[in-house]
């Protein structure tokens, strides 16, 4: 359905996306993950025919996005990042206008249908300018669904929605993804984890990794991370831990806790506890942290890949881990 080969886009001297290649079939919900400025929106704009690429080619449903742009645009439903709405129109008028632009038949019935899908049927006569952000987002989504497109391209579809609406929209996307191809971008990683059947992590215009969310997680989660806390200064604890087999990457964190990774398949926490106590430390805490997609994301999109050495890594990671530390403290 979506076929992208060697896609490159330059804005002046800046290269926004660099030689992207990926594909998605019918029934795929492809998640596009990446930090801001990674090139997600640029890629989506090329796929929807908004602008042509500098190099490379992209096809949607067998039509080239540059050469057969109109055919592509007929088959794609697009929700841009800034939801394109006319505040002076009512929801109904707006959707009717879009339906007319798309030469639909029985527009009014179809508008009622999509309004029901996004739970906006009661606000159909409200002016868009008077709607809340979440409602506008849903009107934008309705607009993208109006012509029953084969391919849905959604740029941050759940942004600005409240938690219940987010669940609704995610369920809706999952539902839609059964018969269509959905490409959605997000920087909420749990969203990609929940909704998508394939995740594409992109950073600085390049694809860093492409896999299913489960496999991605197991790829790094193979090594489980453990946090250890003792009373007082943990001087010499690193050497103690270094002697326990099945432990790697010991880090001293700024709050005087130690973090290390367990070799997959070997839970040596009891051994660690014994070693710590035998060396005369008072063990306060020993707990495992799940490696989430967040960690993988941070790991993969970091500025420069760090060698996995103990000393260098400690400082680098400190900045990213502050949140985690805060959470841990709350748990106590």
């Amino acid at each position, binding site marked *: 359905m979506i076929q992208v080969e060697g896609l490159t886009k330059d804005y002046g001297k800046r290269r926004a996306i660099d030689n992207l290649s990926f594909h998605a079939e019918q029934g795929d919900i492809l998640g596009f993950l990446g930090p801001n400025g990674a090139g997600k929106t640029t890629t989506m704009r090329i796929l929807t025919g908004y602008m042509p690429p500098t190099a490379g080619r992209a096809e949607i449903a067998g039509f080239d996005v540059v050469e057969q742009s109109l055919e592509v645009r007929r088959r794609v439903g697009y929700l841009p990042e800034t939801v394109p709405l006319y505040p*002076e129109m009512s929801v109904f008028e707006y959707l009717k206008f879009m339906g007319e632009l798309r030469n639909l038949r029985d527009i009014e019935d179809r508008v009622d249908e999509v309004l029901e899908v996004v739970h906006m049927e009661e606000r159909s006569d409200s002016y868009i300018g008077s709607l809340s952000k979440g409602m506008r987002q849903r009107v934008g989504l309705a607009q993208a669904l109006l012509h029953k497109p084969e391919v849905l391209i959604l740029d941050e579809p759940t942004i600005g929605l409240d938690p219940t609406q987010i669940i609704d929209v995610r369920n809706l996307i999952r539902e839609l993804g059964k018969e269509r191809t959905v490409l959605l971008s997000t920087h909420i990683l749990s969203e990609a984890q929940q909704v998508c059947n394939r995740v594409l992590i992109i950073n600085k215009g390049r694809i860093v990794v492409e896999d299913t969310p489960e496999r991605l997680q197991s790829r790094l989660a193979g090594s489980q991370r453990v946090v250890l806390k003792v009373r007082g200064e943990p001087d010499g604890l690193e050497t103690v831990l270094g002697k326990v087999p099945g432990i790697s990457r010991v880090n001293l964190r700024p709050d005087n806790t130690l973090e290390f990774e367990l070799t997959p398949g070997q839970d040596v926490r009891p051994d660690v506890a014994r070693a710590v106590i035998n060396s005369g430390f008072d063990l306060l805490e020993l707990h495992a942290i799940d490696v989430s997609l967040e960690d993988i994301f941070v790991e993969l999109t970091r500025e420069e890949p760090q060698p996995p050495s103990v000393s260098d890594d400690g400082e680098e990671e400190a900045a990213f881990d502050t949140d985690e530390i805060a959470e841990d403290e709350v748990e106590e």
Partner: protein
Amino acid sequence: MRNIWTIARREYKLFFISPIAYVVAFLFMLVLGLFFSLTMYGSISQMAYSPTAPSPQMVISPMVTILLFTIPAVTMRTIAEEQRSGTMELLLTAPVRDWELVLGKWLGSFLFMASLLLLTGVFPLVLNFMVKPGIDFGPVIAGYLGLLLLSSSMLAIGVMVSALFANQIAAFFISLGVVLALWLSNQFTSYVQGFWKTLLDFLDIITHFVSFYRGTIALKDVVFFISLTALFLFFGTALVEWRRWR
């Protein structure tokens, strides 16, 4: 074709939702009304010395100047606002060709200007009642046709300039500048020679308009204004296209 009409209709309706239509219409009618009453009072007070009725063209000539200043205000929003609010992304990813978008935007504004001109028709009608035995409607009709054609080409300039900007004020002043430059170009004909003189003479909007004003409809003038419209709409489409490639 249907797309052009869809866009034009939305554009036309939008004028009456936004305050622009009312401001423009108010200014148009106010200034024209002032001119009209002044001319009428003037000719009434002169009645004893020169008993000639004011010519119906006195409604047409002030409108040319008013058009010059109102048209940039009418067109400034058309494409600039779509670019500012992000709805351009919607239009450019809908199955609509770039020229259909530009033509639709122009048609909507043209229909609005045409409605406004229709409204000013009350002045010749009033004059018709005040003058015995009524006025000659020939030059009035020719004059209005001239005004429509003139508006059509000025609106095309405005829509083209609007495609350049995401800011309405910028679009307003630049289109006003272009329109004024075209307007004043005939002032320079005596300073240049050869090709430039021919070009300036050809581009002179006033000369092309004056024949309508005098009551004659010449094919070459009709063609001139239509070509000017087509040319600027073509440039406008090229600008929208250029935006995609940036």
